[in-house]
């Protein structure tokens, strides 16, 4: 069933089959939802906005609010200027956000609407803000869109107003779940470091039941904090694809030094994160974190024999799978296929960075594997057909491959449409690594139990 992928590898150049990415605007909406009292706005047809809200709602199981310019044929011929002006007026009149975050779509980009000049000439009520990001769907992926909107926040909001920088850290967390953002904040708190996180979707897309529908839940980065980010002494960008650009812009604009680290998934990347904080803020690592790390290592040792030598295929967003690949290697597993749908370079910048980074990790571990950016799941499936793996890690769309090839499957990344809890429970930090260990070992051991003959079924594994 659902096995329409032939084994024989075919070279293709006419588009994708079963994409491992989606378009920029959804990333822009997700980032914008990480500002408190912000309403994302999609400048394009209403279908785009509808799909993004639907997709976010399916992943987070929360309302995802955004407005649309509702392009019609007229707007597509004459430009969307009046649509956006009307939209700005209506958004503040009806929904009264503090900030409206406009992003473009393939349609408005192709028509060539000049968003900054439209914003300038629009009626924006006193004390309210409109920010924007260009997010053409025909470039990059949802990760690029997240990066661009985060850059837009720096561009419009961040200011350096003080002579001396504050003893404070900016954290740009990247396209990760609210639970992950909470975990990163917990670690920074435990280190005793003052910080600003933006965007921050915790408390927005994991908001508690209150019996009321709040268009703007309590969470999200405060606008005054994002403004003040220009006065911090350091920015840590977690993930080079989702976060680097904004951090670098902040460095150029406000002279806040930027450091890019891998998303802290797994022991090594979490160590790096904590060491960076310790060095820059001259703080002791509290015992609680040492204890968590020790527990993680303890568990890794207790269970390593389940993992050793197992072949794994990993796919998803580049920042996430860089961390996952590193963690899998630390367990003695063999990530033989690593694939992302996001292009592996930057627009107008160097290409092939993703392949290089991951290939280096594999080479260092003495493993030969296939690594691909801008790939699709059809290709991953073909690889697996030609060289089977013991485990598949990725988003929900991996379930077709997992079923067709009967491979244990662990869901990590975006989107996850067929399970719950992922927005709340982190995969970052030492605690997150423990959770990953649980997910991976449960998947592998459930399979051992399932496949065991009666006489081989073991009580103790």
């Amino acid at each position, binding site marked *: 069933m659902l096995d329409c992928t032939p084994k024989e590898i075919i070279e293709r150049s006419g588009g994708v089959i079963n*994409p491992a990415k989606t378009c920029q605007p959804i990333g822009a909406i997700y980032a914008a939802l990480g500002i408190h009292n912000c309403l994302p706005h999609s400048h394009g047809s209403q279908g785009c906005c*509808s799909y993004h809200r639907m997709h976010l*709602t399916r992943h987070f199981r929360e309302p*995802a609010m955004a407005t649309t310019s509702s392009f019609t044929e007229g707007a597509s011929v004459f430009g969307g200027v009046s649509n956006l002006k*009307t939209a700005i007026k209506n958004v503040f009149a009806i929904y009264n956000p503090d900030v409206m975050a406009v992003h473009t779509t393939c349609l408005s980009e192709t*028509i060539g609407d000049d968003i900054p000049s439209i914003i300038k000439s629009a009626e924006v009520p006193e004390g309210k803000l409109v920010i924007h990001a260009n997010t053409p769907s025909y470039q990059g992926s949802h990760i690029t869109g997240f990066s661009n909107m985060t850059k837009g926040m720096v561009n419009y909001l961040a200011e350096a107003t003080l002579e001396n920088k504050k003893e404070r850290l900016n954290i740009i967390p990247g396209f990760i779940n609210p639970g992950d953002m909470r975990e990163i904040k917990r670690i920074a708190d435990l280190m005793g470091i003052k910080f600003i996180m933006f965007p921050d979707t915790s408390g927005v897309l994991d908001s508690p039941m209150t*019996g009321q*529908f709040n*268009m703007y839940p309590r969470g999200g980065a405060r606008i005054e904090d994002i403004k003040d980010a220009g006065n911090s002494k350091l920015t840590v960008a977690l993930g080079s694809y989702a976060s680097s650009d904004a951090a670098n812009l902040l460095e150029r604009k406000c002279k806040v030094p930027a450091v890019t680290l891998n998303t802290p998934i797994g022991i090594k990347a979490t160590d790096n994160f904590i060491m960076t904080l310790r060095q820059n803020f001259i703080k002791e690592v509290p015992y609680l974190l040492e204890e968590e790390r020790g527990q993680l290592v303890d568990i890794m040792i207790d269970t390593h024999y389940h993992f050793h030598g197992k072949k794994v295929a990993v796919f998803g967003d580049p920042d996430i799978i860089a961390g996952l690949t590193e963690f899998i290697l630390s367990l003695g597993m063999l990530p033989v296929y690593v694939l992302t749908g996001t292009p592996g370079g930057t627009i107008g910048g160097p290409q092939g960075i993703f392949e290089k980074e991951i290939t280096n990790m594999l080479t260092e571990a003495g493993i030969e594997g296939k690594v691909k950016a801008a790939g699709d799941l059809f290709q991953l499936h073909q690889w697996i057909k030609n060289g089977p793996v013991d485990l598949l890690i990725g988003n929900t769309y991996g379930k077709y491959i997992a079923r067709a090839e009967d491979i244990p499957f662990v869901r990590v990344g975006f989107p996850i449409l067929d399970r719950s809890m992922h927005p709340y429970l982190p995969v970052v930090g030492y605690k997150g690594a423990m959770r990953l260990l649980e997910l991976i070992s449960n998947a592998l051991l459930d399979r051992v139990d399932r496949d065991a003959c009666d006489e081989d079924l073991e009580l103790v594994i």
Partner: protein
Amino acid sequence: MEKAKADNFSITERKDFILTKGRQKDQLRCGEDSIAGVVSQRACVYCGARVVLNPVTDAVHLVHGPVGCASYTWDIRGSLSSGSDLYRFSFSTDLKEHDVIFGGEKKLTLAIAELAQKYNPKLIFVYSTCIIGVIGDDLEAVCKAASKKYKVEVIPVQSSGFAGNKSAGYRAACDALLRLIEPKTIEPGFYKEKRKKSINYLGDFNLAGEVWIIKNYLKQIGIDVNVAFTGDSSYEALKKATGASLNIVQCAGSMIYLANKMDELYGIPYLNVSFLGIEDTAGSLRKIAKFFNDLEIMRKTEELIKNEKTKVSAVIQFYRERLTGKKAAIYVGGGFKAISLIKQFKEIGIDVVMIGTQTGRREEYETINDMVDDGTVILDDANPSELEKFMMEKGAHLLVGGVKERPLAYKLGMAFIDHNHDRKHPLSGFVGAVNFAEEVYSTVCSPVWNYVTGTGAAFPAPQRAKII
């Protein structure tokens, strides 16, 4: 009809789209474009076309545009197949900046070539997206050339997102289907001579296997389903659509255009039916039997209705007793579904206090107005704040809607059922009525709502008092 209190809306343009049923005879405005800057629950032309055509199981559905449109519609329809699974794959030309500047025809030609070679399909639908409408790729020409070259039917679907709303997409899909059907024209009187007891079933997408249930009923009363549009359909079956002597139309919003066209071109008459709820199912079966004017069919129909009703009545009664007095709010895609839901809720003792659709037509809103009680709020193309306002005002216990409405209802501490793509069991026919009642009961009467206190999910008042 009395205009609903619109004072609370800062947006006066929305006033005419909302009514409270009363004595005056105002008309509800509908079928117009959404206002820029609102949180619309509506989708686009491409979405409409895609949901109608997607259940054609053995077709390659190639989305021509940047990747997003294909990503978001990858296997979300929930329509089941008894044959091919090809429709559950996601194909996109994944246009890049270069293609947008220089045109996407080359990449499209290449994509069709590769897919034709790889899958050897009989049918490829090529969907146009927003950007194609703007850069002006000649879809017709590319598809025609590819059809000829690879001996496969390649049909363009003119579904640029901005060119109207979802209904325009339904129409684009119907146009694509019409190009498939053969022969292209038929002599007048053809069907009078050779009328067989075979029908086409339009407007059922086989979500959770619903087409199969209805096919089975029809078989029991001696009628064959020639082909369903488009649930569990295939290239070969759709091609032979003219072999039927009657079209029955369930989801009129998406399929009435096709039914009219088939009447016009092939002289196949159509009947509107609905298999949602016990009364509608029974009524529709009788209507079909009457059309064929065959005593044997009529006898079998009555027998089937009697048997099936007997099977389900006790269960329905069980739920009716437990649900009577509850109030429901409805916000769905089309008018047909909204109308059926009012009846379905009546069968289990629930009153509808708010009802709206994304794309309902004027005559459907008139029917709705005739069916509901005084005081019921009727609204077109509502946004979440409107839904919230009226659901709370009217004291609804339950919302029926789609993906985006679910978390809204939950946040308000309100039960929810999905009557859209995310439904997990069939809601059609007699068995569907039982599933419907069960689902309503399982959500409305779930113990989880007990933990939502008046002040939200805070600690209940007495406990807090003790702590202090």
